[in-house]
C-alpha cells in the first residue's frame, strides 16, 4: 500500500485543512454529487473538484491512474443504453440503443467519475493516520476505524508472507499455471488456506501484545488541532457550491 500516502506530504491550502472538516465537507459533497441528474450540473461538480486537485498540486497522471482503477467496474454501464426502453437512436440488428439509455449511462459514468475524484482529493491530501483519527472523532464506530487501520498496517506484512510462500513453492519447481489443472488448483488453495491461518494466528499474537500493554477500548484520540478561519471558509465555500449545484440540477436548492 505504498501508493496510499504518496502525495499527502505536500504543503498546500488543501493539505493544511483540518482533516475533520475535509472529511465531513467532502462526504457531504459526495452525497450531493451521486444524486445529481443533469450532465451540466455533474460537469460543474467535476470542474470544482478538478480545481481542488489542481490547488493541491496532485499530478494529473496520478489522478488518471486512480480513475483507471475503477474501469473494470464500469463494464455493466455499457449495457444500459441497450436495455433501457425508449426512442431508438441506433440499431444493431435486433439490438437497439435508446436515447434515454444513452443519457442515463452518461449520467452514471459522470457520477462515478466525479465520486472517484472526490475520494481521490480527500485521500491524496490527507495522511491516512489523520483521516482515521478524523473518522473516529466525527463518530465513525471504533470497530470500523480499527478495521481500516489494521488492514493498512498489516497489508505489507501479509503480502510479504504470501510472496515468501510463493517463492518457496517456485523453488521446489512449481510454476503457477492454469487454475484448471487440479494440481495447480490444489497448490493455490493450500497457499490461500495457509495465508488465512497465518493471518489468524498473527491476529491472536497482535491482540496478546496489545493486552500486554493494557489495551482497553478506543485506539484513536481526536487531534488536538483547532479549526481556524481557513476551515470555516472552506466549509462555507463547500455549502455554497452544493447550493449552486442543486440550483443548476433541480432549479431549487432543496
Amino acid at each position, binding site marked *: 500500500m505504498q501508493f496510499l*500516502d504518496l502525495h499527502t506530504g505536500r504543503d498546500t491550502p488543501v493539505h493544511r485543512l483540518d482533516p475533520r472538516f475535509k472529511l465531513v465537507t467532502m462526504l457531504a459533497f459526495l452525497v450531493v454529487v451521486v444524486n445529481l441528474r443533469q450532465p451540466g450540473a455533474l460537469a460543474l461538480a467535476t470542474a470544482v473538484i478538478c480545481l481542488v486537485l489542481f490547488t493541491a498540486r496532485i499530478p494529473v497522471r496520478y489522478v488518471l491512474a486512480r480513475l483507471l482503477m475503477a474501469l473494470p467496474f464500469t463494464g455493466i454501464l455499457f449495457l444500459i443504453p441497450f436495455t433501457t426502453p425508449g426512442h431508438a437512436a441506433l440499431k444493431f440488428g435486433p439490438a437497439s440503443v435508446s436515447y434515454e439509455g444513452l443519457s442515463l449511462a452518461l449520467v452514471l459514468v459522470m457520477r462515478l467519475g466525479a465520486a472517484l475524484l472526490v475520494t481521490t482529493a480527500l485521500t491524496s491530501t490527507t495522511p*491516512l*493516520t489523520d483521516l*482515521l483519527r478524523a473518522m473516529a472523532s466525527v463518530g465513525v464506530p471504533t470497530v470500523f476505524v480499527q478495521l481500516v*487501520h*489494521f488492514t*493498512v*498496517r*498489516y497489508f*505489507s*506484512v501479509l503480502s510479504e508472507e504470501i510472496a515468501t510462500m510463493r517463492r518457496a513453492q517456485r523453488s521446489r519447481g512449481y510454476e503457477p499455471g492454469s487454475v484448471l489443472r487440479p494440481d495447480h488448483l490444489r497448490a493455490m488453495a493450500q497457499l490461500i488456506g495457509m495465508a488465512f491461518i497465518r493471518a489468524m494466528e*498473527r491476529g491472536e*499474537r*497482535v491482540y*496478546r*501484545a*496489545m*493486552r*500486554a*500493554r*493494557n*489495551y*482497553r477500548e478506543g*485506539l484513536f*484520540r481526536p487531534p*488536538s488541532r483547532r479549526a481556524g478561519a481557513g476551515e470555516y471558509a472552506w466549509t462555507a465555500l463547500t455549502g455554497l457550491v452544493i447550493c449552486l449545484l442543486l440550483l443548476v440540477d433541480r432549479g431549487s436548492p432543496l
Partner: protein
Amino acid sequence: MMAIEVKGVSYAYPDGTPALREVSLSIPAGSRTAILGPNGAGKSTLLLHLNGLLAPQRGQVFVAGRPVLGDEDTWVRETVGMVFQDPDDQVFSATVAEDVAFGPQNMGLSPEEVVRRVKASLARVGLRGYEERPPHRLSYGERKRVAIAGVLAMGPDILVLDEPMAYLDPEGRLRLRAILDELSAESKTLLVATHDVDFAVEWSDHVVILRGGRVFRSGGPEVLRDAELLREASLTMPTVARVFAGFEGLCRDRCPLTVGEARELLASIQTELEVE
C-alpha cells in the same frame, strides 16, 4: 529481594498438551537472567505467565511479592514489560509515536506526560526523530527498538524479552546489547528467553534451563560449562568452551567460557612464552 517468584506452576494448552510442569524459580531483582531451552521447552509459555497474559492452572506467580491473578491485573503489566519476538506482532500503530504512546495512554496518564514518556523512550533506544515514521517502512531492527520503546514508556522495573536477538543483523544485535546493558545499569531486572548459549554466557549473571516444561537446572552462567548437562537439555556448548574442550592442561584454575576470558588466558600464555 526477589523480582519474580514462580511457585509450582503448571499449564497445559487447550488441546491438552502440557507446556509447563511444576515450574518453580526465583529471579533476583536487578539480575540479568537467561531462560534457556530448545524450542518447545516451555520458554514462551513461561514468559506469558509473568505478566498475567496466561493464568497458571496450578501454582502461583508473584511479582515484587504480589500474586499475579490473571487477565484483569493491570498493575502487573506496568511492572513487567513484555517484548515479543516478532515486532510486527507488537508494533501495530500507524506511526512510531502513536505506538510508543499506546501503553502510557492505557495507563491513563495526562497527554503531557504521555508526550514526555514517548520522547524519553525513543531517545533511550536511539530513535529520536522517528516520531512520525510509519512502522511498516522501518527496518526490522528499528521496529524491534520501537517495540522496546513502547514497553519502556510504561516504566516497568522488569523487562521480559522473547528471543530478542532473532533475525537481527550484526549491527542490530550490537545496538540491542547496548540497550540491554544500559537498562541493566539502571538496575532493571532483565529476563531473556533464548536458545543462544553464546549470548547467555556473555550477557547473563543467572541462567535457568528448561527442558520438557520443567526447570532442568538453574544457577550462574558456569552451569553452561557442563557438556553432559547441555547435551541432555538439547543445547549446544558455548563456542569458547568447545574450543578449549580437550585443552584443560592449558587452562589455569578453570577453562574460559566467554570471549573475554579466552583472550585473557591466551594473553597470559603468550606472556609466559615470551618470558621463556
